[in-house]
């Protein structure tokens, strides 16, 4: 199935192309937009990006599979990125991560319609470890007992990453 970008996304891509000497540097932004508009980077979504920027499909595929924030599968509305790197680990991040999986019944890396749980590398909030980022919202100095409240808060205040493109 041939996919298309919305008029708004097309406009955005055209504006971004003006920031660079060629179209290729816009590939990451275009992938974000395709992910936003089509839920995930399916083969068709990658073809859409390739066609839009006049790039070979293998190049777009290569970029899309290199970076961890691009996903080939759809994900829940809230992508909860729980840092477990050294500073967060030292202050209990694995316990926090485990609490998320227990509360939601979702494996690390897994997803349901509302939440995807990601074990994240350092998110540069080490002085407030354990730290979580979900969209543009940070949760700092998190304790396992707060996980229930965080989930409830995100249910009423969803933080889709796609809002930021």
């Amino acid at each position, binding site marked *: 199935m041939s996919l298309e970008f919305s008029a708004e996304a097309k406009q955005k891509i055209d504006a971004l192309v003006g*920031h*660079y*000497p*060629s179209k*290729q*540097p*816009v*590939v*990451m*932004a275009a*992938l*974000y937009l395709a992910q936003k508009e089509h839920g995930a980077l399916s083969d068709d979504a990658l073809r859409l990006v390739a066609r839009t920027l006049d*790039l070979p499909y293998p*190049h777009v595929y*290569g*970029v899309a599979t*290199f*970076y*961890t*924030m*691009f996903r080939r599968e759809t994900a829940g509305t809230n992508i909860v*990125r729980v840092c*477990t*790197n*050294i*500073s967060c*680990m*030292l*202050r209990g991040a694995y316990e926090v991560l485990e609490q998320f999986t227990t509360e939601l019944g979702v494996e690390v890396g897994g997803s349901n319609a509302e939440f995807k749980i990601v074990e*994240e*590398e*350092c*998110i*540069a*909030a*080490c*002085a*407030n*470890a354990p730290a979580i*980022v979900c*969209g*543009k*919202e*940070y949760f700092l100095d998190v304790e396992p007992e707060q996980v229930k409240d965080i989930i409830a808060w995100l249910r009423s205040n969803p933080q889709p*990453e796609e809002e*930021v493109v």
Partner: protein
Amino acid sequence: MPADVGTKVITGHFGDEEQKKIAVYEQRGGYRNLKKALRMQPAVIKSEVKASNLRGRGGAGFPTGVKWGFLPKDAHEVYLVCNADESEPGTCKDRELIYWDPHQLIEGMVISAFAIGATGNNYIYIRGEMMREYQVLIAALDEARAKGYLGKNILGSGFDCDIHVHRGAGAYICGEETALLNSLEGKRGQPRLKPPFPAIVGVFGKPTIVNNVESLSNIPAIIDKGGEWFAGLGVGRSGGTRIVCVSGHVEKPGIYELPMTLTMRQIIDDVCGGVWKGRKVKAVIPGGTSMPPLAEDELDVVCEFDALMTSERIRPVEYLAGKKFDMGGGRELRTMAGSGGIVVMDDQTDIVRACWRIMHFYYHESCGQCTPCREGTGWLQAVCKKILDGEGKMADVDLLGTIAEGIAGNSICALGEAAAWPMMGFLTKFRNEFYERCVDYDPAVAPPPLAPLPGPEADDEGEDEAGGEGAAA
């Protein structure tokens, strides 16, 4: 005189939500240094930055002015790229600098672009996960553009400069400057072989300067008060203050802008309220996880670039017991100030687990391009895990050392060393903790305790000055 504790060059407005509004920033003197700089000769700005002894705050500590000097004299199309891909574990300063004071960074960038002749489009490469900070930057850039601090003929000077934000998408390696440039070009973020260095062949094949957020944020103050003043705030060949991010097992973790005269022990005890729960220090990572850790008796060293590399009070790293690692030409490796990310581990920390987590990180983030790094980091994490799970043998501990030694110096970029150095550092100082986990552990084979170090020299300054007031946020 070096800076006092409490001197804030770039973090003075942390915690103040108003600072990110351009009107407030201007009211507080913002953008006046851009006006001043645009009336100066670019060569004069460059010599001020050189005189300031500003050293790159991304991790390498390379003098910013010298880096700028690598641009070809006849270059007519130059780019300035700000590296805002902060992801070195333990480091959390650039994100805060962007969030609290975006205009300070923008002003520093426009001044720097003017100095190096980077007309036209320039870029801030920001980490994909920093969504909040991305929006703050976009808003600040729009404000700056509307006020004429960006765009064509800035403030009537004839200088054209714009800044665009390029979002990464989750790849630690893109903090490596040539990987960053490839990513900026819309490719996989894999590092390039150097030379040529970016100053000669950078983004889009043009001469490019890549500077860290903290480095660029210091530029307005250098224009304001001069390179000599900035150099005077520091120590030796390191100018200015330094932001350290202290995390882990301390009472008051935080982001602190401090003079480079404080020892690691003073930072932990006097600035951060000591180790939590009344415990003692077991190990400290001094500058992001890429750096070899310090043992408890190595903390009386001043946290400054050169001191951490050369002090006799830090043991040289060994890859096998008694076998020093050679950085080339017989140079010993002690540790480095790196990115300023200080991670404190208390005396109850499982060092093997901490080391495994760090190795796992580098394994996950290796770009896969070159064999020593791709395969080596995989082996380091796998063997660490085996020992952690109680299935390792004592020979595996030595295997870790030889793998690390085999990676270092043999990879395309520094990610190889970033894994190998801390691995060797943990082995040097905590070898027994690894041995004790092994199925064939034999205390008779265990290496003798670490050699004692020369005692702390009498400090005639700075000893009593450090207080809790260093807190920046």
